[in-house]
């Protein structure tokens, strides 16, 4: 493959269908005479269901069935606590489904669900996150990584360091809130179930449903042609999806539909846990780090373990002889956290890159220069060489374009029309993964003799969750086959297509493209450049042996300007620039959207997003989009993203690193750092709200 991205890129191949309303999402799939499902959520945080009174609900006209822990079908297979829906009387968290109504109309289902009365035996619950809790424990893993690492003697080195920064940073619970809610349409035909599911991986969903119901994978079809955002929350099946499949089991041959409300999404589809991060940085007067400690306590769930890899960024970003990272989890009587866009690096970069700014201030060294001075020669964690790393190039390019040179480092010195202005920088890192096991099939359709050029059908059960997979994979296939993109038809989102791994971990494109390139190479080897009608080939993405030899990751640098109102403390971000190094950019048009979208997400995390848990009742109080603020258009000012050329021959056959998450990482720290530069106030907790700046 060549390594030059050509032209501005390809517009989304499904764009016309989406803007004309013809793209059919899971909930809109054609289903004859569907039944509508409505769940009933627990109103206690911990305990047991004593009784469910269903008479009034069953009497609502149009109600077909009321399911309770006593009457719901049994799953029949293996299920963890979250997916074990209506299988026992145990209540693990508020909002957990304790009953559900099937009815002929959504209105009847809703009315009947409201009429269900549940009696509980409540038990004492702990729902407020106390980082000093005696229940804190070391999780088995933080996602795929060990919870603790230590090199040298970080405490002694810190104590002996010429310049030290020690500070604690906190981040709250945050929610994914994709535009499209979680939706499922399920129908059983004998021992076979078909799911239309808003999913980041149809094959993973198939395997989970098969395991839950104790049937073979062949007994499950999952279809997910268009997905309106996932961000991790559609990576695994949550209770609503299982509930839908379970309810459909009770009415064989009929489709059952469920679309979650925002409140149900808040209660049952996961979130990013809260973190408390203690950073200790020790450096020489030259700014070179000698000791880095990043010790994290984060919120978790008693019902199932999830460890956010918050401190993992500190294993890779800067060189230091003495280093430590650790993670402790405090189990709470809340639903289970899950992967959320840039798990670990998003919250962890707030602590790590805020602390670097504090160190720059303490040293009197420019924060861009400080980062450059601490650039490692090899991955600090493993000692492996980087397959490619251009953080310094990102910092230099960004500084140049942002106009960083000559920045007056003194805080609280630029008051313009009643607003304090300041600028800030932060670095970004996200590991580049690829998952083995995706498969692609290619078939050539020659068309009519003398007619239009033949077409290549490329099949792979990948997921387009709005990131542009359909478009990028079309380009990848076209390039690998040596034909124009207009001759490629890319099919995805269906378990009837060859196996594909998840759209997650910023690994989707790399994993799927590896399979497509393999299939294309085999196609040309087998059939040459003038294939017969019906010629076929397939390819499977194997394990990349280079992953054991190199450290692989995308990098970036964020530069932001912040304005804080001198009287009211309101904080605005009039200017944002992100510069990224993420291997080969396959499709500049959609890549730019990915980067900008990530940056807006980071801005939203910096200024707005906070899931508020009621300490007494254990529910998330702001369980809708009026209460849970995400950035509005008016919050986004002048924003731009660009990337530096990066040729990485090791990362995968297309040379592309994932770009779905790197755009978020570091934004909140850059905003906090700029707010400090503007006002002299160091905000160490997210979100950064106006009261921090109101003075005394």
């Amino acid at each position, binding site marked *: 493959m060549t390594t030059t991205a050509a032209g501005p890129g390809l517009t989304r191949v499904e764009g016309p269908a989406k803007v004309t309303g013809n793209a059919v999402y899971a909930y809109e799939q054609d289903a004859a005479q569907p039944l509508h499902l409505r769940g009933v959520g627990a109103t206690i945080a911990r305990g047991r269901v004593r009784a469910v009174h269903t008479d009034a609900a069953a009497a609502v006209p149009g109600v077909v069935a009321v399911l309770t822990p006593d009457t719901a079908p049994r799953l029949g297979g293996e299920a963890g606590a979250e997916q074990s829906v209506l299988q026992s009387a145990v209540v693990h968290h508020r909002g957990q489904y304790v009953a559900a109504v099937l009815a002929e109309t959504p209105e009847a289902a809703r009315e009947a669900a409201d009429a269900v009365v549940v009696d509980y035996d409540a038990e004492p619950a702990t729902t407020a996150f106390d980082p000093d809790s005696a229940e804190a424990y070391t999780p088995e893993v933080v996602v795929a990584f060990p919870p603790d690492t230590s090199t040298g003697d970080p405490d002694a080195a810190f104590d002996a360091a010429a310049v030290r920064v020690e500070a604690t940073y906190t981040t709250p619970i945050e929610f994914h809130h994709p535009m499209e809610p979680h939706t499922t349409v399920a129908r059983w035909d004998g021992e076979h179930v078909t799911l239309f599911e808003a999913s980041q991986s149809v094959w993973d969903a198939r395997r989970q449903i098969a395991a839950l119901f104790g049937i073979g994978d062949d007994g499950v079809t999952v279809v997910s042609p268009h997905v309106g955002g996932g961000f991790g929350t559609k990576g695994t099946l949550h209770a609503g999806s299982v509930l839908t499949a379970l309810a459909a089991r009770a009415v064989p041959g009929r489709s059952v539909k469920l679309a979650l409300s925002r409140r149900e999404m808040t209660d049952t589809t996961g979130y990013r846990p809260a973190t408390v991060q203690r950073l200790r940085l020790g450096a020489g007067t030259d700014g070179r780090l000698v000791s880095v400690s990043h010790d994290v306590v984060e919120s978790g769930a008693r019902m199932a373990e999830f460890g956010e890899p918050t401190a993992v960024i500190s294993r890779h970003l800067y060189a230091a002889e003495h280093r430590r990272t650790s993670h402790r989890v405090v189990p709470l009587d809340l639903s289970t956290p899950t992967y959320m866009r840039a798990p670990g690096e998003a919250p962890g970069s707030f602590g790590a890159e805020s602390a670097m700014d504090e160190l720059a201030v303490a040293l009197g060294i420019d924060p861009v220069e400080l980062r450059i001075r601490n650039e490692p020669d090899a991955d600090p964690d493993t000692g492996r060489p980087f397959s490619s790393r251009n953080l310094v190039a990102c910092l230099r390019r960004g500084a140049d374009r942002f106009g960083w040179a000559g920045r007056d480092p003194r805080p609280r010195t630029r008051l313009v029309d009643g607003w304090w202005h300041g600028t800030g920088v932060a670095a970004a890192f996200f590991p580049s993964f690829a998952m083995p096991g995706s498969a692609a099939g290619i078939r050539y359709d020659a068309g009519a003799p003398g007619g239009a050029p033949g077409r290549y059908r490329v099949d792979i059960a990948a997921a387009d969750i709005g990131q542009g997979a359909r478009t990028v994979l079309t380009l990848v296939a076209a390039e690998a086959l040596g034909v124009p993109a207009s001759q490629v038809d890319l099919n995805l989102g269906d378990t009837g297509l060859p196996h594909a791994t998840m759209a997650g971990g910023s690994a989707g494109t790399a994993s799927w493209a590896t399979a497509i390139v393999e299939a294309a190479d085999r196609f040309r080897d087998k059939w040459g450049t003038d294939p017969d009608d019906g010629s076929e080939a397939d390819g499977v993405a194997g394990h990349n042996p280079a992953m054991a030899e190199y450290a692989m990751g995308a990098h970036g640098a964020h530069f932001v300007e912040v304005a804080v109102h001198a009287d*009211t403390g309101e904080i605005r971000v009039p200017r944002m620039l992100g510069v990224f190094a993420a291997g080969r950019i396959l499709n500049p048009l959609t890549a730019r959207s990915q980067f900008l979208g990530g940056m807006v997400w980071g801005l939203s995390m910096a200024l707005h997003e906070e899931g*508020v848990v009621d300490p007494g009742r254990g529910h998330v*109080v*702001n369980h809708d989009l009026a209460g849970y603020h995400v950035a509005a258009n008016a919050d986004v000012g002048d924003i731009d993203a660009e990337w530096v050329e990066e040729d990485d021959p090791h990362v995968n056959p297309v040379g592309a690193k994932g770009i779905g998450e790197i755009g978020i990482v570091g934004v909140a720290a850059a905003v906090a750092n700029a707010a400090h530069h503007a006002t002299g106030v160091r905000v160490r907790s997210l979100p950064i709200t106006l009261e921090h700046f109101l003075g005394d």
Partner: protein
Amino acid sequence: MKPFAYTRPADAASAVAAVAADPSAAYLAGGTNLVDHLKLGVAEPGTLVDVTGLLSTAITPTDDGGLLIGAGARNTDVAADPRVRSAFPALSAALLAGASGQLRNMATTGGNLLQRTRCSYFADLTAPCTKRDPGQGCSARTGWARHHAILGAGEGECIATHPSDMAVALAAFDARVHVLGPAGERTVAATELHRLPGADPSRDTVLEHGELITAVELPASPVAARSAYRKVRDRASYAFALVSVAAALDVGADGTVRDVRIALGGVAHRPWRATRAEAALRGGPATDEAFRAAAAAETDGARAVDTVAGGNAFKIPLVAGTVTATLRALAAHGTEVA
């Protein structure tokens, strides 16, 4: 949602008769708040009496030089009206600071006044709420109180805030609310329409069941032409006020305050006319120090709630900052407030 009946009377008198005769009936206008409450089960009227189409949508000059705004006038149209924009710029600005374009296109003047608090516990039937049922007690006092009241609520009383921006401007301008009831017409001062919570927070206003707002009258007010609305919130748009200020200011050539109007939003169960701050300023200097002192006089005795989920003590200095910024800008630039 509970099933309900729907009627569409021919005129206001019939509508009033229909609602007055049925304790379970409620008026429906733009529906931007009530329909949400129907879905959530917060409101369960037996009958909806639709008054869209029978209320005046006109904005007409009054004999004394003021304006009469029909209760059916849409928020969008009031905000865009040239007479409103020139004579009462803070009212136009307040409307535009609220909701979204789509909601303003639906929401009416009367409905805007009668919208209910956005306290999340009020909208959540699974959480106790003293406004829904005075016997239940208040969840916000031990929970999420970031958006809640610092003024006008006694110990243990409801700390919900009234969410309207428009109503804050009306309170500043001594507007009068025209009401049609079973016993005929009456007018209520805008500052008296909404109640403090007291022992019965379930009642937002002094209106009796069946009474229908038919118009809002703005008396002529020379000072209102130099007015502004400043809304401080947690994001740049599409959020309710943490604190808002509707203010008008007339400063004499000698630098003293000749006339001033101040009303606050986001701080109380009702739009809060800052009479103490006004009195402190009248006849005194138009300086930052005086503005801050006046705001402090208004919040003297404010009661904040401090909880682990987020309290509201920051609103006390925020009132001072917002009042000061608004009055300073009015003193310098008239109606252009940054």
